[in-house]
């Protein structure tokens, strides 16, 4: 009798411990993933370490996971960089009116979280007629009735796709790297969320998912790229990729298309006939924080002066 009681006690204690362990595992492992793919997800290899068959399998699993979560079909492309292409971006400060249409076009194209709100593009507002232009004097949260405002000018900032990117150097796990077409990308399934890249970036371009990203299913852009706009996870870093899902298919980035005043230019720096090469040759261009030798491929310029 006593023996039985003891055994029962042990059993209950064991079940209890088991339950606690399961509970803990449930908490630590993202709940938005199906149990079956949990281990596959945990042991997923680095994107660049996988062969084509492995990538295909991972893409299949991720697409299933996204479908389950968002109840719609989301395709994940893995388009590779095109040979002979090095992307560059031009931004005409004399044209920008600070309307932030680029910001919201980017949010919709790239499936950014609405709550907490994530923007890959920051538009800074500067007062005209100040003694000097200093970033510290700029305003990020300006909110007037209409733009442009008489006494101000605007400067959008996003990932500058540096040729010598400090973020890539700093990443301890090689989760972010520069592809041959010059785009700095992130493997969201490899990033450990240490945020060293954010400390290293001189342009405030990187965003962290402080909470699980939140975006209603109907607002999800279903055409995605593995290294670009596919939905992200809690605890990983993201940033502008020059719309890798578009530009590797010969299209313009969403921000370029959205700009109502044509302040945004995009093209292949290796093509002497490209718009980018033309403006670098003929306009007064500068790049942000050139003294840091990051060598950005994001050129600010003034098409006309006023």
């Amino acid at each position, binding site marked *: 009798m006593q023996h039985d009681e003891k055994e029962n006690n042990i059993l209950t204690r064991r079940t209890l411990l088991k339950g606690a362990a399961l509970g*803990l595992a449930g*908490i*630590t*492992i993202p709940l938005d993933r199906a149990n079956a793919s949990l281990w596959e997800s*945990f042991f997923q290899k*680095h994107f660049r*370490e996988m062969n084509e068959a492995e990538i295909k399998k991972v893409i299949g699993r991720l697409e299933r996971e996204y479908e389950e979560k968002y109840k719609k079909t989301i395709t994940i492309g893995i388009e590779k960089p095109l040979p002979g292409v090095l992307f560059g971006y031009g931004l005409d400060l004399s044209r920008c009116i600070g309307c932030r249409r680029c910001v919201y076009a980017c949010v919709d194209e790239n499936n950014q979280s609405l709550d*907490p709100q994530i923007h890959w593009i*920051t538009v*800074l507002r500067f007062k005209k007629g100040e003694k000097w232009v*200093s*970033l*510290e*004097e*700029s305003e*990020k949260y300006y909110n007037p009735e209409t733009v442009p405002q008489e006494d101000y000018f605007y400067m959008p*900032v996003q990932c500058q796709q540096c040729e010598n990117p*400090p973020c890539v*150097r*700093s*990443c*301890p*796990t*090689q*989760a972010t790297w520069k592809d041959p077409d010059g785009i700095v990308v992130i493997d969201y399934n*490899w*990033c*450990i*969320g*240490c*945020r*060293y890249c*954010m*400390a*290293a*970036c*001189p*342009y*405030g371009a*990187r*965003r*962290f*998912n*402080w*909470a*699980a990203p939140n975006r209603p299913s109907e607002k999800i852009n279903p055409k995605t790229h593995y290294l670009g706009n596919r939905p992200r*996870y*809690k*605890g*990983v*870093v993201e940033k502008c990729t020059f719309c890798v899902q578009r530009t590797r298919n010969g299209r313009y980035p969403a921000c370029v298309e959205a700009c109502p005043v044509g302040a945004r230019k995009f093209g292949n720096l290796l093509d002497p006939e490209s718009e980018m090469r033309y403006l670098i040759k003929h306009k007064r261009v500068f790049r942000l924080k050139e003294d*840091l*030798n*990051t060598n950005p491929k994001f050129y600010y310029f003034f098409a006309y002066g006023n």
Partner: protein
Amino acid sequence: MVQIITNFFIALRQIAVGDKKYYAWVSFLSFLILLGASAYIGQLNRGLIITAMRDQVSWGFYISNFTFLVGVAAAAVLLVIPAYLYHFKPIKEIVLFGELLAISAITMCILFIMVDMGQPLRVWHILPAIGAMNFPASLLAWDVVVLNGYLAINSIIAFYVLYRLSIGKDYKMSVIGPLIILSIPWAVSIHTVTAFLYNGLSARPFWNASILAPRFLASAFCSGPAIMLLLFQIIRKLSEVEIDNKAIFKIAELIAYAMGINLFLLGAEIFKEFYSGSIHAEPMKYLYFGLHGHNKLVPWTWFATILNISAFFLFLFPKTRENFTTLNMACAFVITGVYIEKGMGLIIPGFIPDTLGEIYEYTPTMQEIIIAVGIWASGALLYTFLLKLAIPVYTGKLRFFSKAQMVTALDIMSRRLVTVLPDTPADEVARLLMAKHLSDAAVVDQNNKLIGTVSETDIISLEVGQSTGKKASEIMSSPAVTITEDRKIQELGKILAHVKASSMYVLNRDGQPVGSVSSGDILKALENIRKE
């Protein structure tokens, strides 16, 4: 194997059993750890959004604590140098406790990094081979290497010394000497690499100053030893460990020099920033005077500055550093001062203003603080357990089970015996003893069981004429001094001393004599064990 398991249980028992004060302390720490763990589970569920960190200030309280603790861990070296290299004996005896502190501090460092990670389950991605460690490009990868290496080196040194002491032997310098030599540059390296981690970022002018690594080392050599000074006084009070005042005052003197250098380097940095007055001085302005009306860190910064300067003078003058009231005050000042200066005071201004000029003021949330307290409690608990184990080993009260203890009478006895039957004539016994050069003979019965002994003196004490005709049984002393063959070597000495004999017969299970053990045999065996 049996030895390892037995020792594991000896160690476990040592940690698990204590007095009321000990249980109260352990429960208190466990309570804090549980609080921290539950807050951390909340963080795992909801994400790092429960902290006050945001994109503008992307590192905060966790990384601040991490940085401070790397300094504490590195400071163990300050004790190692004089202790092992210059044989300054008073410090040498306590260096072990410093190394155990380094082990606890590094463990806390690793925990602070873990709780700061957005995807802690992916931590294996940082490892070489199975992960994709970005070595040598990423300074964070370097930090992983040097911190884990430091943990390994200190663990090996500390546990080797403890193990040798626990089995009653002295440690061999030929074994740990090279490791100790290695640990000195390695300690410098953990703090240098951690400084470079920030130093190497051109995006953050506040950190991007070459003076950062020297400043890190100087401040580490203040706070780390100050923590040890307080701990040593506690250890001395609560245990039988004797820590010489000379050692304490020597360490206090070293802190004074380190603090002098620290203040000098800080002054050099402040001069450069404010005199040149470039845009790079903004974070420093934020730290000391506030920027555009944002000044949450300002009172803390001045508080730390005043503490550090006061502590410097308290440590500098022999009168105040050799008085325990002012000494302990100075220690508390230095620990608090450096904790602020090298914690929040170093990390937060790196992000303020941010790279696009925005000012986001950071104050840790309650959950962040609770998680941090939980980690500090884990470190304190680990150190408590390590001390609970190390102190009795150190004072010789706790001995581990070892092969040396397995040595029995059977292993060390002399097998040369003269055995005679009870009716053997005394002169025959004398002849046998002389032939074998032995001083006594065992008298056994028909079954070869020992019933007594006849020694040379027993025979000599009879007058020559009387000896003829006497039998062994008539002149023997009985009962003889005997032990069983499975008696451990440690017991033999005590038995010999107790019975005031110079040798004993060793009996097998059937009570038959198989050999004898003399005090000389025991001495020789102990000497052999020591030599191993």
